[in-house]
């Protein structure tokens, strides 16, 4: 991963762009400009069209008062907020509940994942103990078995747990959060472990000499220095949970406790074309928190992504 770490675009910037092919000191004109730069703009506009048509389309559909799939085909032909009103007042599909459930489940999971992962990464990075190497390797192995592959077993486990701990059994949001937290260690420890290693050990040593305990070093020194990776892991875990359909659909059955992916999927699968506008409104609202988070944390994400994660 070392090779990848050095590739952070944010840390590079100016130095790397010096002397790339085709560069000279005079700005080109005419045909030369076209051959060197002009086509790049055209290609980029093409890619932007590909990237933005679905987004413009869903925003336009959500504002279209006809609300049907056919009616949405002319972009921004008319604008009204009827769909949003319908969405939030539909008694059968409690959208506001879904939104709240998703935010709550995703936030708690993200927070828990960050804490669990950071603690484990600290142990692996700062202590030398028997089974350390074996532990890291087994984590790598375990994380290759994606949790979602085991959803049949998760379902059966939660059915059993329902009798013993009803609060974390099948159909409960807390139960779902705990399931997600079970996958927290395997996936994120590596990402964090690499970053923890970049924090100089001398800092710990100095603090230790000043009389700080291992817990104080962890909570007050290390956690602050690794804030960027905490943000990235938190965000990735938030987005992963936010988008998860499979496990959420297996665990949560009652409409009132469902999450956005499960709920919105029902919208589309049950009454597809007539209720398209309402679905589009729901999709736009659902996208807002994630897009906002990405904007706020964009700087960190670029470096975190290049350090080896995949969108979930």
């Amino acid at each position, binding site marked *: 991963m070392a090779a990848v770490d050095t590739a952070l675009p944010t840390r590079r910037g100016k130095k*790397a762009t010096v002397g790339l092919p085709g560069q000279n000191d005079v700005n080109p004109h005419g045909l030369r400009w076209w051959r060197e730069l002009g086509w790049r703009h055209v290609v980029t506009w093409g890619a932007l069209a590909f990237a*933005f048509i679905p987004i413009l389309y869903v925003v336009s559909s959500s504002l279209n008062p006809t609300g049907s799939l056919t009616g949405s085909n002319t972009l921004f032909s008319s604008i009204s907020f009827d769909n949003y009103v319908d969405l939030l007042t539909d008694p059968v599909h409690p959208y506001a509940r879904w939104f709240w459930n998703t935010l709550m489940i995703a936030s708690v999971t993200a927070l828990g994942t960050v804490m669990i992962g950071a603690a484990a990464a600290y142990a692996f990075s700062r202590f030398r103990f028997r089974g350390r190497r074996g532990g890291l390797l087994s984590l790598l192995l375990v994380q290759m078995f994606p949790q979602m592959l085991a959803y*049949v077993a998760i379902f059966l486990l939660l059915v059993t747990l329902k009798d013993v701990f009803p609060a974390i059994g099948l159909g409960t949001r807390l139960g779902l959060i*705990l399931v997600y*937290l079970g996958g927290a260690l395997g996936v994120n420890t590596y990402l964090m472990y690499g970053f923890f290693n970049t924090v100089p050990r001398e800092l710990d040593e100095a603090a230790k000499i000043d009389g700080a305990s291992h817990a104080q070093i962890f909570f007050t020194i290390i956690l602050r220095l690794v804030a960027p990776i905490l943000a990235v892991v938190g965000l990735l875990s938030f987005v992963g949970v936010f988008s998860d*359909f*499979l496990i959420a659909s297996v665990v949560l059955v009652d409409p009132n406790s469902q999450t956005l992916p499960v709920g919105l999927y029902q919208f589309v699968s049950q009454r597809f074309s007539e209720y398209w506008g309402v679905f589009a409104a729901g999709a736009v609202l659902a996208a807002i928190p994630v897009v906002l988070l990405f904007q706020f944390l964009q700087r960190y994400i670029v470096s975190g*992504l290049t350090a080896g*994660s995949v969108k979930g």
Partner: protein
Amino acid sequence: MTDTSTRPTTRTPSGSAPPARAARTSWWGRQDITRGFWVKLALVALVDALGVYGVLAAGAQKQWGIVAFLVVALVAVNVVYFSKRMLPAKYLVPGLLFLLVYQVFVVLYTGYTAFTNYGDGHNSTQADAVEAILVQNEARLPDSPAYPLTVISDGDQLGFAVVDGDGAAQMGTAEEPLHPVDAPIENGHVASVNGWITLSFNDILEQQAEVFALRVPISQDPNDGSLRTPDGSTAYVYGSTMVWDEEAQTITDTSRDIVYTADQDKGAFVSPIGAQLGTGWKVRVGLDNFTTVFTDSSLRGPFVGVLIWTFAFAILSVATTFAFGLFMAIVLNHPKVRGRKIYRSLLIVPYAFPAFLTALVWQGMLNRDFGFVNQTLLGGAHIPWLTDPWLAKISVLVVNLWLGFPYMFLICTGALQSIPSELYEAGKIDGAKPWRLFRSLTMPLLLVSTAPLLIASFAFNFNNFNVIYLLTEGGPDDLSAPVDVGATDILITFVYRLAFGGVNRQYGLACAVSILIFAIVASISAATFRKTRALEDLI
């Protein structure tokens, strides 16, 4: 490194040895009374309280596996957090506990289930199966006397109170077989039972579904049959046409005179000519689920097709997203392109859009008759993007390209910028043309740094449930296939169909396919990681 370090007063250079020795005299003396300690004590106490509650609850349910796990976990937590040593464990235990239950255990349980016939018709013990079979085949006995009935309730459950042939009152509930009770009889019916409420006719109408479904066993022996009511005022004896013989382990269908014998290998009752009763029980079936996948002619064809498409989908997804992402990265990797920064931040917008929404939105856009692509972009065409087997495959790939290229664009941009420009200078001096520079310089260097990410992307797309399921649900379904399977089904959506899709849920088979998926992904990842040496760099 020890907790004593939080107490600066004991760390005077001259007096450090004697106080430490003195402190070792008692357990309490060894604990440092700091704020952190109280927090720790409170947290561990909370965990202990929950754990003890769990032990009691699980014990009451006779879930001995959970009891054993909780006891071990509680001991481990207390030892780790009150010991002066085991520092790494203090940081690893919370994550490990979750990992053990929700990852390691479920993986092992998946493995175990893969060796059973768990599924619809095989989901419980043999005793439950016998009872279910007898109940399913109950019918009103032709010679049954009519018992005057009073329906009673204690708030939670319903019960029957009847007047038997001798004029005596008897009562029972679904759990409690019929037994004599001391109760007044008026007009030939039991008037009331102590501690129970007598339901009026209107009450019965309100709960008629429950009343008609209630069966009160005549005795502990399921062969004796039960009392049921078709009208709420008279009860009749219902007997099963099936007779269970525990000694011989057989069930006899008395109406047709067929003897079904318990077959512990199949977990079902089987007649001499091989017919099975619909309800069976869970047994271990060895490698049957795995061999079924490859040998059962109705499964093998679909499975191989799905397997090939899964590989094609994963490889093509990585290839197309990487090619497009890299292409855009190169296009924008020219210092004189105006607005590069804006272009870059706009291009990664699809990445911030939640994947499940993307799939659903594209599902609408690609709709054959009303979708945006056909109606607006293609001027009223009727191309079956999602309902033709091949077009659906292409559509899935295009949607996944939309989702995945920003990520590849990001990492390629980063990797391109990390290639030292001197290398290009040297190449140009040697007379290399741009294509040659790209092929011999850019690509090799780029692949070195992105290879681990490409493998991760492959593994991710191999199990990319969301895109497939939310876009096409694996369809269009292949109606000629003997099992439930569609043209865009990848392994994980195929498993989902096996486990939760149709009428016949086959958990055991689904788990077996899960294990196969794991084996494939793990061996490919392990082989390539080894090759890229990413692992050695890491540890």
